[in-house]
């Protein structure tokens, strides 16, 4: 079973044209540059076409994300009280929410440049932070954008993103926990589904 996953993982990496054993810093850099190149040329995304931005994120970025791990991090202790089926639904819904957010951020892109900070991978490390900084072209302060990656098999997967020190994953912890406290796991699933539905409405409107 494990080797099957490794095989699927390997195929995914191959499918996204990433050579095996690509370092986490190289991975972040390649994907960032690839995505920004597309956004820079795409007038639709720049003018707020969220649907198109979502497609871009789904194809280019998602293969490198570990959503199960992200959902687990956001759920903290409540992850264990969810059934396997609930975990699956939660992961899928959280996936949609994160993709929407990421896509929305891309539509706000305006000539910023990304600076990749020096990175050294120590031997045997499997859990690393790759630091980047978004340089604003005009007004506004630079924003640090850091990626936490974990090695699974031969591939590195992003499991957390920090913007200016704010983890986009653990930022959900308190609201998830209070939702579960008040309405149980099913309540959290319902509120995520409702949130994603309302997001659909706004992205269609665009």
């Amino acid at each position, binding site marked *: 079973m494990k080797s099957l996953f490794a095989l699927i993982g390997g195929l995914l990496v191959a499918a996204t044209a990433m050579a095996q054993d690509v370092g986490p810093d190289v991975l972040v850099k390649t994907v960032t540059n690839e995505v920004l190149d597309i956004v820079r040329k795409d007038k639709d995304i720049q003018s707020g076409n969220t649907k198109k931005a979502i497609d871009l994120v789904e194809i280019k970025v998602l293969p490198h994300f570990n959503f199960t791990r992200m959902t*687990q*991090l956001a*759920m*903290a*202790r409540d*992850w*264990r009280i969810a059934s396997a089926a609930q975990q699956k639904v939660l992961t899928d819904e959280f996936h949609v*929410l994160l993709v*929407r*957010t990421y896509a*929305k*951020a891309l*539509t*706000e892109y*305006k000539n910023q440049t990304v600076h990749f*900070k*020096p990175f050294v991978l120590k031997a045997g*490390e499997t*859990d690393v*932070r790759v*630091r980047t900084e978004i340089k604003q*072209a*005009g*007004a*506004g*302060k*630079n924003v*640090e954008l850091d990626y936490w990656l974990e090695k699974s098999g031969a591939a590195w997967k992003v499991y957390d993103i920090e913007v*200016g*020190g*704010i*983890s*986009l994953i*653990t*930022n*959900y*912890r*308190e*609201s*998830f*926990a*209070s*939702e579960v*406290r008040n309405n149980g796991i099913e309540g959290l699933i319902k*509120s*995520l589904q409702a*949130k994603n539905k309302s*997001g659909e409405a*706004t992205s269609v409107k665009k």
Partner: protein
Amino acid sequence: MKTTLPARIKSVAVAIAAVGLLAGCATSGNPKDPIEGFNRAMFAFNEGLDAAIVKPVAKGYEAVLPSPIRTGVTNFFANIEDLFVGVNNLLQGKVPEAFSDLGRVVINSTVGLLGLIDFASDAGLEKHDEDFGQTFGRWGVGNGAYVVIPVFGPRTARDTVGLVLDIAADPVANHNPERTRDLALALRFVNDRANLLPADKVIEEAALDKYSYMRDAYLQRRRNLIHDGNPPREIEADAGSTDHPLTAEAEVIEPRAALVPAAPAMLVARTQPPEAK
């Protein structure tokens, strides 16, 4: 004359006192946010104020003024702020950073045409973000309760005290004559808001509950700032790991060298070395 400045401080003090009074009656399950009921009301008030006045003005400002001018405005106020940032770095014992801030002020005030152009950043003198709340945090003062202050927005009890000092030490707020001071304060406020406009939609998209999303983002951000971008990574509370309250996070800053040998292996692995300059 600075007649209205003490009044301003007084109004913040009144807000704090009001918070203190309400702390007795409104309670919630979250130990970081014991006066959640009051905070949510203030948050709603601030959101309303933003939607009705601040945001439309900021949008108009953004639409009317070309980007290079807005950059100039941002840089101008950032330059004034750098002096204050330097003082806070000094208070935190970060002498090289304090000198770098002073260097920034010297360069940007002269070559940078009274701060309109940020040459210092191009010259490699990084812009820092410091205030009195962070200085107290560095000294080991904990967050205290989370508070939403009218107009100013999210703070912690510690950062509220910091805010009162920030205002008292703010060169813009102390400027004479009053007319230019008020204009400058308004301009800075609107410009700051305009710089945040792009984040609005992303937050709306991301948040299940905007109040708690903003609260937790604020708390994470402050923690990061106090540690100058290298906070000890929070111990994970994910499936399979031993139970611990999510709030059991040490807010007191320990010297990094002392922290490392004492920390569990997992935490050490996640504590990043200071970034190579």
